């Protein structure tokens, strides 16, 4: 079985190890946890991509690629994520596990060293990031930000959270915005990088066959250039308890053939830190989280009001976000029906097959996290950002205990906060 442990390598620099022999690869990530902020989000998101272009030792993509080949075709990729109101930036790496090297050589140590080199020994010109790498990665990031509009489904949810959390950090996108990214210079980016290294909480993750002590030693060495700072902390997350007196309504018009209706609910203060959180989690699934849910079975399948309709839970921020694709003229009917389905959950009108089907799907997803190194890493990063220690197995066990009444009680606290509607030009 796998053994999970956690220890502090330097002040505010934490290592989580999952010791297991079940994979052929070992997974390694280093993540800096910074408060999500409009002013810094773009630069923070840009930093790992610029770092990935070259180091003092391996100054270009070719030499980095050759170094990775030497490590049996390992992969190190920039990662930018958002967990609650924390922006998580860094690298995620996958290497052949030591047990499978052709000549029995160690891969963990040189891999950790390369990862540390990418984070801490960048290729520089005139004491800051090189203008060439900065400019081309800036262009890539702006392309990515602009491309968000291509996927209208994701875009609608993003716009919903933006409107809903206009005065909260959660409204900021993980990639930042075009305006701030465009203004970045190699010098300013370098300052941001130094500040990030000095201030951010650091979360390191390893999953593989090496003993935790060996992992700790390899990473302590690889990251020894990290500035010492006794007051490094992971940021918090502000949970708003109630919605405003009237829902905010935001509409946008674009040249689209399918309308998008997104509804944002506050959870009445329920979030991952509360004891009854599993009930809220199951409640969201029964409402709109699976193909057995009320939104899928009724709004989509039975009434054919939507092309798709689903609900997701933002567990740290305490939001339930409904996303649907509709004909433009179905706005009122679809909205009424989505709210009617929620009312049914509030009244506890949940069939045993709905409750159990959703519970089985959630528990299956939870347990299969253990079979996938990158999903497991993402789970533990989320726990680190929230300051929680509960494992997937423990959470699954709590899900087993949730009753129909608890699901209804969780639903009763949901309050509609914001409505976002994307409609076509001629509508």
């Amino acid at each position, binding site marked *: 079985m796998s053994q999970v442990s956690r220890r502090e390598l330097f002040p505010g620099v934490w290592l989580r190890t999952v010791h297991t022999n*079940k994979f*052929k690869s070992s997974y390694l990530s280093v993540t800096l946890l910074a408060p999500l902020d409009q002013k810094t989000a773009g630069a923070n998101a840009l930093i790992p991509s610029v770092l990935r272009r070259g180091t003092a030792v391996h100054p270009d*993509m070719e030499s980095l*690629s050759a170094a990775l080949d030497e490590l*049996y*075709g390992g992969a190190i990729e920039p990662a930018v994520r958002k967990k609650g109101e924390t922006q998580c930036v860094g690298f995620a790496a996958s290497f052949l596990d030591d047990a499978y090297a052709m000549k029995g050589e160690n891969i963990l140590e040189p891999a950790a060293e390369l990862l540390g080199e990418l984070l801490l020994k960048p290729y520089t010109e005139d004491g800051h990031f090189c203008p060439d790498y900065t400019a081309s990665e800036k262009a890539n990031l702006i392309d990515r930000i602009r491309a968000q509009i291509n996927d209208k489904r994701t875009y609608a949810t993003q716009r919903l959270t933006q409107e809903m959390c206009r005065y909260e950090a959660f409204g900021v996108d993980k990639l930042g915005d075009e305006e701030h990214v465009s203004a970045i210079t190699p010098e300013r980016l370098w300052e941001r990088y130094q500040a990030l290294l000095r201030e951010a909480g650091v979360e390191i993750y390893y999953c593989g066959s090496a003993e935790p002590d060996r992992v700790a030693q390899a990473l302590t060495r690889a990251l020894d250039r990290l500035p010492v700072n006794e007051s490094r902390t992971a940021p918090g997350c502000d949970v708003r308890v109630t919605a405003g007196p009237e829902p905010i309504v935001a509409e946008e018009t674009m040249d689209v053939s399918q309308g998008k209706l997104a509804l944002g609910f506050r959870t009445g203060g329920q979030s991952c830190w509360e004891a009854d959180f599993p009930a809220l989690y199951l409640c969201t699934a029964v409402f709109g989280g699976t193909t057995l849910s009320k939104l899928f079975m009724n709004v989509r399948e039975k009434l054919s009001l939507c092309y798709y309709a689903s609900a997701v839970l933002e567990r740290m921020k305490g939001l339930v976000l409904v996303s649907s694709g509709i004909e433009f003229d179905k706005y009122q009917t679809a909205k009424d029906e989505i709210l009617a389905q929620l009312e049914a959950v509030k009244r506890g009108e949940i069939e045993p097959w709905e409750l159990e089907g959703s519970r089985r799907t959630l528990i*299956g997803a939870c347990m299969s996290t253990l079979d996938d190194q990158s999903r497991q890493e993402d789970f533990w990063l989320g726990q680190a950002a929230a300051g929680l220690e509960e494992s997937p197995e423990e959470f699954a066990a709590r899900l087993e205990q949730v009753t129909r009444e608890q699901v209804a009680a969780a639903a009763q606290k949901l309050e509609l906060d914001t409505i976002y509607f994307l409609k076509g030009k001629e509508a």
Partner: protein
Amino acid sequence: MEQLQFTQVGETMYHEKLDNGLNVFVFPKSEFQKGYAFFAANYGGMDMRFCLDGEWHNTPAGVAHYLEHKMFDTEEGNALQDLAANGASPNAFTSNAITGYYFDSTEKFEENLRILLSFVSVPWFTQESVDKERGIIGQEIGMIEDDPHWKGFMNLMEAMYKHHPIRVSVAGSVESIAKITPETLYACHKAFYNPANMVLCVAGPVDPEHICEVAREILPKQAGPIAAKDYGEKEQHQVVRSFIEEQMEVSAPIFHLGYKGDALVNGEARLRQELVGHLALEVLLGNSSPLYAKLYREGLINQEFSYGYESDPGCAFLVANGESKDPEAVRQMVAEEAARIGREGVNPGLWERVKKGVYGNKVRGLNSFENLCVGQAQAFFAGHDFLRFAELFGSITKEEAEELIAGWVMEERTALSVVRAKEEGTP
């Protein structure tokens, strides 16, 4: 059951050929939560002409794929929904050579396996359901025909092959599927979906003997006759046309560059050729080759560049594809690099590095149950075992790769397919 050890990659494979001719392969993984089952027929898009009980049949293009779509129908309803209600995620695909059905689940694995084996072995087609599917598949065909990457690849196949059915789309065309009737589907099911022409591969926390028991219980007791296939006249070494072009809605020209190889008969030689072909591509134009860096620097390729070795019964080739402002220059530079390698040989340092990289990536790929099971099914139909690659790998020499490059990357075997943006004013 026969037990095969692949110690280098830490895998054990159980194998049994049941009395009805079905080959069962099981990879027990006691530490995993999830089980995965893959049930496949040695029958794909290219098996259009076949002989059963002394009679030759010529079936329309797209039958194997159409059959795959219709197999989920059961007398009682639809197997997809039965599996979903059990928390399983089912799906299927049809390639040139095989048709495969699969699911994974963390609970009720045995019950799900019974559903899988049952719906694939018991055909249930009505005129009405077959007619209804025609519209759905027609839309799917319309969608892929709009995909410039797919179009570019199919054009390359037409340019390279004169007779081989790899020239024909797996899904067929709207015209070809118009001829498909329930009788066609029953005839093809009878010819190819008998246990002697199929494999079952399972990975997960399962007991191999028990998997065989379930298969014995559900599947037909007797082996049926295996239909003989005909792929037409043997192919010449030369391509049919060295250049083919098409105009579509694309932002940059998309190219597919192909090198026609020598197809081998089934057996381990096919696996060896696949590994040599893969390594040859890496040293010739792979991510860490000198040519790749040069093409990238000169802006002749971008991050969309990819490459692979492909083989099916009766054909084998190398293909590289991507976006380029000047595809002809890419063809020219690859030819020059192949000539240089012919004169100077492959750099020994590059060879060792690339070998490590490819090996590590292949071993890391074994984390995926899907990769393991689909890989073994394909390998079995090609006459070898998937995991043998680990032992063969060490014995592959630089000279073999050089020989393959010298033999295949030559003018008469090269074809270039380009999809260009529509010119102003052309319809």
